């Protein structure tokens, strides 16, 4: 590894006022695109292409990667405050972020999201620097069999996110899986549950589904209950800068979880085809599973904000590597970035490892620095966002309704999504009202297509023997061990509670 070259690349970013200026413009732009539901990083890059057109390739690439790497930092804000995810992967942050807002801890939750995003981005980048020599064998070792089992691993988290009612949790998870099969079947080309509607051929839009299941029910419930998102918690509120600082401190207090989820996120990002949504939910599930008190999750556990937010930002670094070295984008955002790189004159592919390592190092540094800059910039304005949770619900609801419909429409530019959003919103409200856990729905919807597609591919390639491949055996062991640990923890917690009650 060329250590001198790596640090010379760092100077390419921080030593150049021009590059730093571009980075300072790109970071708030990226956060803005992340914070508005339906816009997201992909549209941000598309809109920025005319701006970088004609720029020197490295400068243009630094601008785009800096913008793209902080999209999810901004996306956490509406997720935490209103239950409206800025982008698909931010949905996992709602599960504990929104209950924290209701407890009057919006500032702390935003601080944790901010700190986790920054640290996740940096650790993800460092992990990439370390793993670069091993990249090719690791990425190539992942085939359909391993994809299938990794997605299955994610689905086992449904049980862990079911709260008090396992039956309801499983049902909601299966419902999400069932809706994942609404599409043009990739194996046979058969229309499944599409009712001849073109907008359903690619499947149910994740953003619309998440907005329907989370945002609309929250606003209806707020309108019924009255008051503000934070209820009457003003006295105990942590909405100022101290709350934000406390949240940032939480990220370091849970350093083990932060490092683990950053690495898991970067690793999942590195594998083309799994997608960013899977990274945040798998990391959220890992946080629940590894916690000594999993019953706190879904009710405002700070680890439930930290885990998905670290993963969201670290996976961006992960997906940069296959994009640059194999020309295979790790995510849909990276696919657009790939096109923009080619337009700028940077030719991704194996040749880059021979002649363009300085560009790769520079982009990894830019990604890490952008994440740090985002934390500093956002810290200055974060308390203002915290105050939003104390705005009267009556003033907030019409804007959130408008934003929700807008996000749903913009995600696929299909008006039919507005119908789907309303139907899922009404269903989501009754699920909320009658205590049906909603997170398993999103896990099912996101991982369903991966499970089905990789299962058919693995069966076609190896038959049932695909389960005996070394990678598959490793994944099976991982599923069994992690599930076993979770069950053991739950049992020992129950025993402890029982003993305590007996003693009283």
């Amino acid at each position, binding site marked *: 590894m060329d250590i001198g070259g790596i640090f010379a690349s760092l100077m390419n970013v921080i030593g150049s006022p021009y590059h730093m200026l571009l980075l300072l413009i790109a970071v708030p732009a990226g956060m803005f695109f992340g914070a508005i539901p339906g816009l997201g990083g992909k549209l941000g890059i598309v809109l920025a292409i005319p701006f970088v057109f004609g720029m020197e390739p490295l400068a243009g690439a630094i601008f785009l990667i800096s913008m793209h790497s902080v999209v999810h930092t901004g996306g956490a804000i509406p997720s935490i405050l209103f239950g409206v995810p800025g982008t698909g992967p931010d949905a996992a942050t709602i599960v504990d972020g929104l209950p924290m807002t209701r407890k009057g801890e919006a500032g702390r939750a935003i601080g944790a999201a901010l700190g986790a995003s920054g640290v996740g981005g940096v650790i993800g980048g460092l992990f990439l620097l370390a793993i670069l020599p091993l990249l090719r064998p690791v990425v190539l070792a992942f085939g359909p069999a391993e994809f299938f089992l990794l997605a299955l691993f994610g689905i086992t988290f449904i049980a862990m996110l079911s709260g008090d009612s396992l039956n309801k949790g499983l049902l909601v998870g299966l419902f999400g899986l069932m809706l994942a*099969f609404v599409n043009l079947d990739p194996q046979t080309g058969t229309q499944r*549950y599409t009712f001849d509607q073109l907008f359903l051929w690619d499947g149910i839009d994740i953003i619309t589904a998440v907005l329907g299941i989370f945002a609309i029910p929250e606003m209806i419930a707020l309108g019924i209950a009255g008051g503000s998102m934070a209820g009457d918690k003003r006295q105990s509120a942590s909405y100022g800068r101290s709350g934000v600082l406390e949240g940032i401190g939480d990220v370091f207090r849970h350093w083990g979880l932060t490092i683990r989820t950053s690495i898991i996120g970067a690793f999942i990002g590195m594998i083309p085809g799994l997608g960013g949504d899977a990274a945040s939910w798998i990391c959220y599930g890992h946080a629940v599973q590894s916690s000594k008190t999993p019953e706190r999750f879904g009710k405002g556990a700070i680890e439930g904000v930290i885990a998905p937010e670290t993963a969201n930002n670290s996976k961006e670094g992960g997906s940069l590597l296959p994009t640059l070295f194999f020309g295979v984008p790790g995510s849909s955002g990276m696919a657009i970035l790939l096109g923009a790189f080619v337009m700028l004159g940077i030719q991704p592919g194996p040749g880059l490892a021979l002649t363009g390592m300085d560009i790769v190092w520079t982009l990894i540094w830019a990604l890490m620095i952008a994440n740090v800059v985002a934390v500093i910039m956002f810290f200055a304005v974060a308390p203002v966002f915290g105050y939003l949770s104390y705005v009267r619900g009556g003033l907030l609801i019409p804007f959130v309704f408008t934003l929700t*419909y807008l996000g749903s429409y913009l995600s696929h530019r299909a008006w039919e999504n507005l119908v789907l959003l*309303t139907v899922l919103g009404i269903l989501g409200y009754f699920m909320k009202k009658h205590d049906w856990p909603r997170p398993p729905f999103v896990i099912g919807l996101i991982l369903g297509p991966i499970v089905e597609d990789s299962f058919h591919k693995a069966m076609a390639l190896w038959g049932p023997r695909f389960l005996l491949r070394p990678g598959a055996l490793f994944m099976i062991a991982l599923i069994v061990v992690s599930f076993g640990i979770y069950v053991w923890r739950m049992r020992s917690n129950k025993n402890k509670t029982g003993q305590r009650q007996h003693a009283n």
Partner: protein
Amino acid sequence: MQTKALFTGPVLTAVAMLAIFLTMSLMALGFPEKARLMPLMVGIPGSVLALLQVLAELRTSIDDAMETDAQQSAAHWNERHMFTWLLLFFFGILGFGFIYAAPLLVFGFLYVGKKETIKVGAFGAAGTWVVLYGLFEQAFEIPLFTGLVIEWLLN
């Protein structure tokens, strides 16, 4: 009393789930073999679990059927009020698009629905219009949905 228990919210939610799983499973039987494998693998256990949930909710509902109070009727009124506004937003945007309908709906919700002052309503409506038209349509050049009624009138 027992007949009334059949129509409680928790029971109806569970019944809706059962209906969804059963319908989707039955529809899957008409797909080719490869296309129906996963929907049936999910749909059949889903139907069984949903049936169990319906039975569990029925038992709970019959136990709780005695508990009715005035608070519930107030909550029902608020619920209907919010659903009315949700549907107004839906049909308004669907019919007349974001640029025309959204500012009017924001004004209506604030001034009529929540009894805010006319100034607050007008300010909210103007802000919505500036964001939708100024930011999205003009600055970002993202064309927003114009509404089915407006499209029909224009054509």
